[in-house]
């Protein structure tokens, strides 16, 4: 039988996994939230506010997942049901990152706009209007992204015996992942906002990860 994990174990899973895992996989979303909701020059408190809201959104989704698997007493049934939702979330997130990165690159490097630029800008404008309008909703949506570390936490939460215990476990796990995300956003704030080249490279990184997430959503794994 699976050895149970206490609440501190869930927190450390999130905390250590956050630095060892989430920074790489969810890094582009941290950059996206910073760029989209914390405009240049708006201050570090504004950055923390939006990153906090984004993290809170993810925690809300995780808590819901924990409550469901805790009530079911197993993660296997939920996994099959979740597969479709996660693919849609991955495809939406990938599309959002691609559009955002391309639109930003067109602004940062106007030469790229030659040939199809205005048309693309119109298409991007339409898509961006339909993207979640605040960081909290973005976090709630992106909490559904397929994630190996989250799967492990969900499997462990299923053994907690009950909706409340399962939800609480994943709430603590989600909170544990937040320091890593906040640290990354501070690094981004210190570097990219004052160095145009790094800012452009960030957009290229977001673009590549967007293609990758879109591929995950459409092609599956």
């Amino acid at each position, binding site marked *: 039988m*699976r050895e149970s994990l206490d609440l501190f174990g869930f927190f450390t899973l999130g905390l250590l996994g956050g630095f060892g895992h989430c920074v790489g996989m969810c890094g582009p979303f941290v950059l996206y939230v910073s760029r989209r909701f914390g405009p240049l020059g708006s201050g570090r408190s504004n950055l923390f506010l939006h990153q906090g809201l984004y993290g809170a959104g993810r925690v809300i989704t995780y808590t819901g997942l924990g409550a469901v698997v805790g009530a079911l007493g197993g993660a296997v049934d939920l996994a099959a049901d979740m597969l479709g939702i996660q693919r849609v979330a991955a495809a939406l997130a990938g599309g959002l990152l691609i559009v955002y990165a391309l639109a930003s690159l067109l602004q940062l490097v106007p030469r790229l706009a030659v040939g199809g630029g205005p048309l693309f800008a119109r298409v991007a404008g339409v898509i961006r209007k339909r993207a979640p309008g605040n960081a909290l909703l973005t976090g709630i949506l992106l909490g559904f992204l397929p994630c190996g570390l989250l799967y492990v936490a969900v499997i462990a939460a299923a053994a907690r015996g009950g909706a409340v215990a399962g939800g609480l476990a994943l709430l603590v796990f989600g909170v544990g992942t937040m320091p890593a995300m906040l640290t990354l956003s501070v690094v981004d704030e210190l570097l990219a906002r004052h160095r145009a080249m790094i800012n452009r490279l960030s957009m290229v990184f977001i673009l590549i990860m967007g293609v990758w997430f879109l591929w*995950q959503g459409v092609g599956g*794994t």
Partner: protein
Amino acid sequence: MTANAHNRNTIVGVVVAVLLFGGIYLSRLVNTGTAVEGEVTSGQSTGELDVSQKNGTMKLGPLVADVVVSPRPPLPMTNLTFEFVLKDKGAPVDSARLSFNMKMDMGPHDYSLIAAGDGRWLAKDVVLPTCPSGGRLWFGTLAARQDDQEHRGRFRIELARHL
């Protein structure tokens, strides 16, 4: 903001980034570079027993363990059973534990084994996910306690794809 302030921010950012990614690199090094104590009698060129396609046998110090995985093929997010038949020399095995991890740290994923008699130890309802980055390879570590000594052996299992 002045040029000096920009430079200071850049230096602080670089330092924090180096600490962050250096820490990640070190933690991965620790997680992938340890835990092999048992000598292995079969397996791939890496020296570890590979039970992805078929069952096998591995050594844990003075112990020999037959590793049986069911059902086949091993699929992600399904209930798997791991059976270990421990052929012990000397005192009987007191307890056994099975833990899993990937190259990318997935946190604690541990199972207590249940003694089923005749040297058989079972871990039922083992659920292994895949990493969306493409990772399907898990490393299992079997730890058996005998005479207050812990013997460990490591094997690998690559999960199959859903049809």
